[in-house]
């Protein structure tokens, strides 16, 4: 499939971060077009485009927007929230959009807000993204000065305020109800659903939450027309996506491709293949929370249905390439450590289960696990799945269960041989996860030598 860029088109050859550059390629024409249309007509274009959410879940954007009440039918304000809390491991594509085509994103925010009749939009931006904050803030200032947002947008009589809200380091705030809690000034712990945010979201008001890339697609849909946009890509997976390519690959980076492009094309032709003459072993196709694919599945197309048929998900479009130096038990341990660190603690299966997973995987990796403990690991995964308010627990259980299912021999060898078969030569050997750092930090606080030694022995005894 040939490469096809929509969102990042022209960004290679021009500076689109400034308003003048963006206007020179027809920027904000889609907003003008939208303001000349009825809100329902704009929504119809989004429905025709059949664009599915780019954040991870893949829910059709037009349908999500159609769940909100008409502004005349609700006494409450309607909110738009842009989810820019990108933090799924392997994913860095929203950053690319924010840094290189910020006005495309802003235009998408304004059109989406107009479509649902909202006068207040929030951009929940990942706290670590400081450079992105500066670029987006500057773009908003320019857009405001040019009348694209603020009071009386382009003379339409409609007002829109946009506030950038910076997070402070919590993966769970990318989950939409965790995000809303955080934006309301609380710990980012997800809410029960229903009610869904479309009915009762931010400040218990109707709220549409869309990912950065999804919103950046909106001006392109209006430019092309929904029906024409829907013809890009493959059935049920319209359009392009910005794929984040990382891991053991020559040219890591973000690549915008038509949906339906195969993993092989992305990894070998665009990514330059595996470095150092190594062999492809496994591929995580949609961020660290999705089930793994083996090297034999490298011809799977990157679209929603093909990934589902292969037993995995397109997720956030983050493709992590893993070569034959990687121990799959260590991979499972590192993934589980991440989700343990990020579990908000609200639901027991996730809070306790991710800890169980880490402990069991560590025992397996160290060659100290019994046969039964491998079964316990799978049992813990099973008891997390579907038993929590949000998908974070599933995001730990699904990939780890898939590593066992697809690389069972490797797990078995750890048990049979009483040691890691890689013998310390795995690419992930000894990697220090933040969850393991706390002991080191504790030791650093103890300055009196005698007490320090005592505390260290205590930590070892209990650690």
């Amino acid at each position, binding site marked *: 499939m040939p490469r096809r860029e929509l969102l990042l088109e022209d960004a290679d050859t021009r500076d689109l971060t400034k308003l003048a550059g963006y206007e020179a390629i027809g920027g904000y024409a889609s907003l003008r077009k939208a303001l000349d249309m009825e809100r329902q007509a704009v929504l119809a274009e989004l429905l025709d485009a059949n664009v599915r959410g780019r954040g991870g879940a893949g829910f059709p954007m037009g349908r999500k927007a159609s769940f909100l009440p008409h502004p005349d039918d609700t006494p409450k304000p309607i909110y738009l929230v842009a989810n820019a809390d990108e933090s799924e491991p392997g994913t860095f594509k929203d950053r690319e959009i924010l840094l290189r085509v910020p006005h495309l994103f802003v235009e998408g925010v304004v059109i989406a807000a107009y479509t649902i009749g909202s006068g207040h939009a929030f951009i929940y931006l990942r706290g670590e993204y400081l450079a992105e904050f500066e670029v987006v803030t500057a773009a908003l200032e320019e857009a405001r000065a040019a009348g694209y947002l603020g009071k009386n947008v382009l003379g339409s009589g409609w007002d829109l305020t946009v506030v950038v809200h910076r*997070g402070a380091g919590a993966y769970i705030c990318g989950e939409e109800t965790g995000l809303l809690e955080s934006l309301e000034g609380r710990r980012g712990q997800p809410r029960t659903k229903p009610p869904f945010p479309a009915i009762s979201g931010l400040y218990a008001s109707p709220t549409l939450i869309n990912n950065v890339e999804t919103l950046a697609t909106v001006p392109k849909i209006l430019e092309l027309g929904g029906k024409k946009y829907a013809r890009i890509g493959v059935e049920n997976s319209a359009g392009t996506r910005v794929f984040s390519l990382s891991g053991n690959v020559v040219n890591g980076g973000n690549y915008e491709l038509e949906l339906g492009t195969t993993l092989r094309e992305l990894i070998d032709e665009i990514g330059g293949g595996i470095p150092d003459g190594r062999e492809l072993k496994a591929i995580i196709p949609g961020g660290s929370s999705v089930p793994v694919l083996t090297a034999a599945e490298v011809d799977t197309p990157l679209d929603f249905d093909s990934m589902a048929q292969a037993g995995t998900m397109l997720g956030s479009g983050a493709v992590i390439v893993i070569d034959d130096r990687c121990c799959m038990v260590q991979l499972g341990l590192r993934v589980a450590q991440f989700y343990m660190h990020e579990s908000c603690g609200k639901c027991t299966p996730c809070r306790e289960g991710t800890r169980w997973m880490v402990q069991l995987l560590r025992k397996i990796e160290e060659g100290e696990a019994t046969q039964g403990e491998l079964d316990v690991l799978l049992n813990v995964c099973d008891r997390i799945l579907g038993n929590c308010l949000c998908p974070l627990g599933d995001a730990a259980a699904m990939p780890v269960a898939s590593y066992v299912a697809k690389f069972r021999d490797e797990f078995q060898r750890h048990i049979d041989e009483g040691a890691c078969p890689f013998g310390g030569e795995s690419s992930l050997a000894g990697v220090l996860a933040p969850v393991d750092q706390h002991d080191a930090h504790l030791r650093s606080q103890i300055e009196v030598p005698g007490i320090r030694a005592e505390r260290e022995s205590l930590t070892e005894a209990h650690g």
Partner: protein
Amino acid sequence: MSGLYDAIRSVAARYPESRSAILPALRLAQQEHGGWLPPEAFRDVAEALELTPAYCRAVASFYDMFHLEPVGRHMVEVCTNVSCALVGAQQVLEAFEGELGVAAGETTPDGEVTLRTVECAGGCGWGTVVVVDHRYHEPVRPEDVAEIVRELRDAS
């Protein structure tokens, strides 16, 4: 402290409910207090937002970017999540440990630099990602570490 109070009130005015401003308020307070949040920082934020200090601490403790203990004047954060780990994040971390003479999670004895590992920073295709005082360095190889530490020492 009235400067901080006014700054927090001004941020709070952007939101329909002032409690929404707790993250920006804590960020301002942390800057004011040398990179961490001592008990008086929670009192300041609580006063400005009409919350309790305990509530402010409970919220702060949820988020990785807020520090409840003193940290160095500079912060070096090494991503050791999967994509970075696959391309040698541990070797980069160990190079920093060697260069700074502290383990991950520790601060240098002169109080200049805190070194820590972090979860995915979002630069996976350009691993290993190292964040120095909120600025991304990518990719970082073990041989780049001495130069980064030198620049940090020169800056302080």
